């Protein structure tokens, strides 16, 4: 469907406003009913605890790690912790935040 057809359906002639709400709608839709699904691979760095989430993410669907609970290089989903470990174990384990270093 083109934006022009959408504008006729909602009875509006304000392109900028409809486009802005359209982008809101797409994000809302991807929260509840995933449509635009993609994935990104990130390198694990020893002693680095924090990693950037994808800049354009709306909802995280799954986080998989290589060799989690297997030794055959498979990617498997990892569990989410409740709370966080109290000890920052390495001097640069905050690397990634920048301002906290």
């Amino acid at each position, binding site marked *: 469907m083109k934006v022009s057809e959408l504008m006729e359906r909602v009875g509006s002639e304000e*392109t900028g406003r409809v486009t802005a709400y359209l982008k809101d709608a*797409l994000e809302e839709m991807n929260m509840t009913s995933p449509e635009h699904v*993609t994935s990104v691979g990130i390198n694990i760095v020893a002693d680095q605890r924090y990693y950037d*989430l994808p800049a354009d993410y709306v909802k*995280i669907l799954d986080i*998989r790690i290589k060799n989690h609970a297997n030794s055959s290089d498979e990617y498997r989903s990892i569990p989410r912790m409740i709370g*966080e470990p109290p000890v920052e174990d390495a001097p640069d384990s905050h690397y990634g935040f920048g301002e906290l270093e």
Partner: protein
Amino acid sequence: MAASKEYAYFIKGNKLSLVEKDFSGTGSGLNYTYSAADGIELPSGGGTWKSPLTSVTNGIQIEYTHGGGYEFTYNSFVGYAAYVSLTDTNGTIAESTIIGSSTKGLYAIAAEGISINWGTYLSIGDYIVVRGDSDLSGLHRIHSFENYGGTNRAIVLDTRYPSSGANQRQGSLRVYYDVKPLLDEDSEIQIPRYKAVAISYYIKARLLEDMGKLKESEYFMAKFFKHLERHDDAKVWSLRQVMPGGHAIR
């Protein structure tokens, strides 16, 4: 064969925090070893959660949804094994290459190891979609081209990087061209038609909300969610049942 490991994550602000259980001191990935002479040996790491113990290339895979407010095709891409570089205060993309002062603080992508003349695919002001780099995933506009080991081998994006200081990293990127963001009435919304109808309800709801017609707005917002629900239900062929929990009041 790689050893089995145990990971967990938590989210802190806009960061993914990854921790690994330290089983060092024991063999075979177990959290203890036993011998008749010495008895049980516990791991020296104490089995505690720590920051990742070893580096793993492409070790994390994040699956996520994005807003999708642009048209592009998965067939039009270039740029494997590219350098992502932050143009620092001197505007350098690499030690030997100087970028103009107007591009300070912008992201740049430089092809490394492959000969790409970005000008063949792109023009200044065009939009690209980047995949394969967490910071840069998504839609960007081309600010300029720069020479980096060859003509037009680097592109500078109209995107500022958030943190201070220069940084450079190498990754396997895909740069999709032929990208059209949702800018005007001719733009095509790349979703199934049924969901596009749901979106028309959402926009109606927001327009009515602006007019102060809250009751009518709620009506259309409910229709939006109901429409999405019906679309998702149509993909499931079996009966959907929600069972009450073991401790539910019956």
